[in-house]
């Protein structure tokens, strides 16, 4: 174990953790903005209730995305100074653009939205949320353009041991980025859709047989249908862009493709492995080249070719991790999308029109339960996707140009990285528990009734005497 290993672990831990929150920020933001838009258009109270309720959950999660994102920007320089020196000229530009064009928009207008409910005209207030949400989505584009450059560097030349940008447009329209952006952003909408499904499903189950049921079940149906549509459409986008990515891998990162399939040798008419031992003949060649007889390269043969080209070293990434990540990504991702298609079918007709009183008339009870149980699936799929994508890039930080081993900060010692890794891991663990608890509590409490009025605040007299047990009213800060 040396500083390089720990720096890699730290990058893995902090990045995977960061991306637990980012998809919800991207996708749920759009969902909340859509609900508020519907309220603005129709004036129906239940859209406002949904806006406020999911808006609160969105904000609890948003905080974590922001603070864990800070770590990313600093850690390139802290742990990977050789990498940063080599790539800064090219890689820094999309990062600076992300901050200037996306983060300012996102943070400033979200502040206006949170505190502007009764200070801004309704239309302006809604526009603020859209501006913030657009900021989040634009930021995804820039950071993915930067990430894509690591896997498929374009628009640069190497001068004096540093990459120099020669064509910004080439960097921003990198084929790898153009395939990756819809794939990752689409996946973010699947995650957010799955989250709304789980929350709506849970509320429907919880309110079964209660007084609130008759009043609220149409509202949960709206949320559920909205999430189902969002997930299903996003599922199509993810699948199509995933197919495109596979073809690009064949050209640009053959090692990753071979590792994902466990293909050891160059093979004509290569089979697609579903799980070890179960294969579809010719399918891998068909998927990656649209020709069932084409040759797909294998890891051992690529290793031999890379040794000739780049000199002796181990160019093969961790094969089992990549093989299984690929299957988790596709399996759990498809399961979520399948669930949404099934849900669209089950909820295709309004039942019990006029007097819709029971959960079963909105959606079968078993389906509501399935939605709750499926909550972790899309997040696991996304995490597996990142493991595939980034571990599959090893041993390179910049494919064909810079090795990970040559990217690490030479002056940073084992102790320093160990301290930061340990503290981040513990801190992140605690924050995850806190965020989970906060989300669960607000989901259990359910939406506030009569959201058109500001809730009355009880006088805080008994609260002052017993600080531990006293309850605070959830404040106006949403």
């Amino acid at each position, binding site marked *: 174990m040396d500083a390089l290993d720990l720096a890699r672990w730290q990058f893995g831990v902090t990045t995977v953790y960061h991306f637990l929150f980012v998809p919800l920020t991207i996708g749920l933001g759009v969902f909340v903005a859509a609900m508020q838009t519907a309220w603005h258009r129709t004036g129906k109270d239940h859209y406002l209730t949904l806006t406020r309720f999911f808006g609160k959950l969105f904000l609890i999660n948003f905080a974590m995305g922001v603070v864990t994102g800070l770590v990313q920007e600093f850690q390139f320089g802290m742990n990977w100074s050789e990498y940063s020196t080599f790539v800064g000229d090219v890689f820094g530009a999309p*990062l600076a653009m992300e901050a200037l064009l996306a983060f300012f928009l996102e943070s400033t207008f979200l502040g206006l939205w949170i505190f502007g409910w009764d200070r801004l005209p309704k239309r302006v207030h809604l526009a603020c949320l859209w501006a913030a949400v657009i900021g989040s989505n634009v930021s995804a584009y820039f950071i993915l353009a930067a990430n894509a450059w690591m896997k498929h560097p374009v628009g640069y030349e190497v001068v004096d041991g540093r990459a120099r940008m020669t064509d910004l447009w080439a960097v921003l329209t990198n084929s790898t980025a153009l395939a990756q952006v819809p794939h990752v952003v689409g996946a973010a909408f699947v995650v957010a859709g799955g989250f709304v499904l789980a929350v709506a499903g849970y509320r429907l189950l919880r309110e079964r047989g209660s007084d609130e049921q008759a009043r609220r079940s149409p509202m949960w149906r709206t949320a559920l249908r909205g999430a189902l549509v969002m997930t299903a459409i996003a599922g199509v986008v993810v699948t199509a862009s995933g197919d495109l990515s596979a073809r690009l891998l064949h050209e640009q990162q053959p090692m990753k493709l071979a590792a994902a399939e466990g293909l050891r040798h160059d093979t004509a008419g290569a089979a697609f492995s579903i799980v070890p031992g179960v294969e579809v003949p010719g399918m891998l060649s068909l998927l990656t080249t649209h020709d069932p007889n084409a040759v797909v390269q294998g890891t051992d043969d690529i290793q031999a070719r890379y040794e000739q080209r780049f000199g002796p070293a181990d160019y093969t990434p961790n094969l089992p991790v990549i093989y299984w990540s690929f299957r988790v990504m596709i399996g759990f991702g498809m399961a979520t999308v399948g669930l949404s298609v099934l849900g669209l079918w089950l909820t295709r007709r309004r039942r019990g029109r006029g007097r819709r009183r029971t959960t079963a008339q909105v959606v079968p009870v078993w389906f509501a339960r399935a939605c709750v149980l499926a909550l972790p699936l899309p997040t696991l799929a996304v995490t597996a996707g990142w493991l595939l994508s980034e571990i599959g890039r090893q041993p390179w930080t910049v494919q064909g140009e810079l090795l990970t081993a040559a990217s690490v900060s030479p002056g940073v010692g084992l102790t320093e990285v160990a301290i930061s890794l340990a503290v981040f891991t513990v801190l992140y663990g605690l924050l995850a528990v806190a965020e989970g608890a906060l989300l669960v509590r607000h989901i259990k409490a359910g939406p506030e009734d009569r959201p058109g009025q500001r809730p009355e605040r009880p006088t805080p007299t008994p609260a002052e005497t017993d600080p531990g047990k006293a309850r*605070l009213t959830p404040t106006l800060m949403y």
Partner: protein
Amino acid sequence: MVTFWFIVIAFLWTGYFVLEGFDFGVGALLPLLSRGEAERRQMIGTIGPVWDGNEVWVITAVGAMFAAFPVWYSDLLSGYYLPFFLVVVGLIARGVGLEWRGKVTSRREAALCDAGIVTGSVLTAFLWGAIFGHVVRGTAAATVIGGTLSLSVAVLHGAVFLSLKTAGPVRARARRAALLTAAGAVPLAVLALPAVADTAAAPWTWVAALAATAALAAGVALIGRHREGAAFAATTAFITLATAALFGALWRAPLPGLTVTEAASASYTLTVLTWIGLLALPGVLAYQAWTYWVFRKRLTAAAVS
């Protein structure tokens, strides 16, 4: 072009220190100036809508350093590994505390959020001065003096901001806190700024340092006379001039043994970045200014409780 981008970086850091300076001050003063939950909410409410947008200034400053001066960015962050690690931890504690403050439901949890806000604000405000103090002079004394100066100026700036943005008892307490903090901040500034100014390379940094000290003194006099708006302008001027002096001193060597030219990206990158900056920054300044306009009213404890 390299000179221009050095100025842009200095501008971004100045914006950050001015804007998040008062956020840090408000955070640090939270337990000292509030009596009870309503006043704590009142204090946090003054920065609630804007702090996250203010923090993007540092993300942009660091991102722009990465793009325009990759070697400076890499060597600074890896060379000051543990300080920057603590900066990030501080910003996490403060950010989560501020965002979750309105979502928690018990006093105990609210107190935890407050603890995050206070420690995060104090720690980070201290660290910025400590890091840049050490970069300029390279001694332990400069680290401590720099850190103490940046912390005390942030507290002063935040106290003036609070006296400008609140009504009622918090406003009066903030004014007293500003005067008390000034007793520490002014001598520290008089001590530290001449050490920052670089006579040989940039004689104008002396002018900036002197003007900064004058602005600080004016700020203290103005808050003493209840001229809160003018006092806030004066502390803003102090931070701006002091940051200018700092970056003037860094111009010859942003880090010991490194020149800006060695650190910089090639001219193609700097040119495209210039166009993007020119297109984006006016918009950012306009909508951030608009945010302050929307939330221009003084906050009372009654309005937020």
